[in-house]
């Protein structure tokens, strides 16, 4: 029973992080219908930047955290500006292939700099913050990740619901032509969605790194696990991404605990194939409102 609870908590935490990572992915898909295969690399980049700032440069942790997020934001902006903007108006297949190329490029670059080994952060949170829940211990990083995640989630919720720029972004996702006719800066919206997605990815990279340690292969692999998550949740639903993430996280944690760890790596993809077969638009994908 204790084992079960531990797995449950691990799974929920992992799933929450998957959901957060997927959120950035969904944002790019919604605004410009690009499947971003370089998402895992954006995640890894955040984790490694944080590592570099904390251990190499020795900057205090809270400042490093904010600095990393800022750099990730700018990085997303730059990627859009220099790689994706020239392709606006080209067939989508080129854009997607481009992200595949970018993924390979960034991953190689990070491997060249940091190598394929496991790195760890210095202990950031004192173990005394852990919560004892009956027989199960919840490590402080889990709680921290949950708190950070929830803060970001609500911030983005408010941003998209109430701020003008957020509404412009949703309008572009909804009907690009009409948005253009009203003078919405569509290119700026694309750039902004890449920037925000990269920021969110960087953040989840840091939290994942705190929990599991950082390794280029693992982190960029999580970028690919985003696909089962978003297919499960519905490609265009941000809330669905979180719930999809939770389901995948739990599934992975339980298979890892009860069956085998190597299977747990594949289970999300098996689920993906079944979801495509049974409920292709995901659990929470928008039902197309069609007025003819």
């Amino acid at each position: 029973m204790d084992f079960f609870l531990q797995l449950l908590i691990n799974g929920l935490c992992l799933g929450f992080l998957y959901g957060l990572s997927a959120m950035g992915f969904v944002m790019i898909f919604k605004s410009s219908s690009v499947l971003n295969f370089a998402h895992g690399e954006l995640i890894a980049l955040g984790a490694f930047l944080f590592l570099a700032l904390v251990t190499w440069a020795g900057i205090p942790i809270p400042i490093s955290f904010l600095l990393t997020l800022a750099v990730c934001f700018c990085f997303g902006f730059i990627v859009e500006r220099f790689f994706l903007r020239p392709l606006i108006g080209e067939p989508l297949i080129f854009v997607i292939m481009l992200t595949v190329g970018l993924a390979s490029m960034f991953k190689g670059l990070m491997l060249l700099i940091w190598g394929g080994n496991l790195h760890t952060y210095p202990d950031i949170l004192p173990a005394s913050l852990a919560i004892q829940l009956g027989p199960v211990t919840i490590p402080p990083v889990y709680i921290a990740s949950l708190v950070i995640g929830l803060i970001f989630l609500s911030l983005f919720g408010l941003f998209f619901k109430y701020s003008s720029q957020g509404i412009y972004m949703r309008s572009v996702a909804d009907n690009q032509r009409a948005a253009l006719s009203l003078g919405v800066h569509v290119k700026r919206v694309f750039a902004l969605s890449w920037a925000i997605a990269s920021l969110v990815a960087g953040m989840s990279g840091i939290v994942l790194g705190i929990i599991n340690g950082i390794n280029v292969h693992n982190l960029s692999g999580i970028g690919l696990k985003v696909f089962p998550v978003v297919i499960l949740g519905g490609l265009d639903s941000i809330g669905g991404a979180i719930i999809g993430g939770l389901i995948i996280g739990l599934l992975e944690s339980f298979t890892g605990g009860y069956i085998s760890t190597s299977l747990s790596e594949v289970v999300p993809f098996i689920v993906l194939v079944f979801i495509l077969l049974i409920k292709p638009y995901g659990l929470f994908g928008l039902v197309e409102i069609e007025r003819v």
Partner: protein
Amino acid sequence: MRKLKFHPSGNFNEYYAQELTIFETDFGRVSLIVGLMALFAIVPLVLSPYMLYIVNMIGIASIAAIGLNILIGYTGQISLGHGAFFGVGAYAAAILATSLGMPFIVAVPAAGVITALVGMIFGIPSGRLKGLYLTIATLAGQFIIEYVLVHWESLTKGTMGINLPAATLFGLELFSDRSFFFVIFISLVIMVLMAVNLMRTKYGRAFIAIRDNDRAAEGMGIPIFRYKLLAFAISSFYAGCAGGLWAFYMRSITTEPFNLNLSIEYIAMVIIGGMGNIAGSIFGAVFITFLNEGLRWGTDILINLGTFSSAALTMAPLREFVFGLAIVLFILFEPRGLAEVWRIVRSSFRLWPFSY
């Protein structure tokens, strides 16, 4: 209506049949025959065994890349599982040869058919949806196949790998790189002919219609689900045949090479060579294989010079970086790939000295 060579001011077709011919001029026909004769007569005699090995690798990669190009370039669907399908072909051939004792000439096409069937399993869910769901399903396929290859130990011997018997063809044992050269390149010629001719049939035209606009294609009465699945099966068949050839050539296979990086390597070949161009796939295979070898050579030199320690400069990440960079640069600056570069060079030669 035979034309000896291109007219300087361009050729104009008067019949649909002219549009369909493979060679627009007799000159092209003759030069192809001469080229092929040179390839088979001179190359195996001149090249060192190491170069011959590289050329053979190019041949195998070309077959797989043509398969992927049928899917990406002609049908407009991206597959991220081509490396895994290549692996399925290799394993299928190995298992057929070792457990069932199938001869080489049967095992390779059979491996292709098995791979096509496996491919269709992953094609079915994606076919129901419009858009790029096939990409995601093939990504899943890549991971699931990798897992199965490692863990279905009773069949694949897991991480141990399989050793194959020597391939025999018409009673001759194929041992040397030279004998394999003939096998691989004859297969390549057959596969190219099949692909080129496929694109001239109604199936090929349907694929192109789906690529250009799937809704309109459906409106014209093309059942897009069936055709997408067919394209996917054909593409997997090519990957499987290439994998089978590779297995017999290598004589021993393990699960390691068939990972996502291999799939990306094939995508790089298709993009760099030119999407929707059969000859382009071969250019891409040549380019990538030489890039691979060049990088290996370069890193070796740098390590020997002592500029970098071997730990700091490992081959794999550099290769990944360079492949990624090549894909990105080609998409940004020459999205139609080397085939287009070749076309431009050729036409400027033809018009020389009046080219502009």
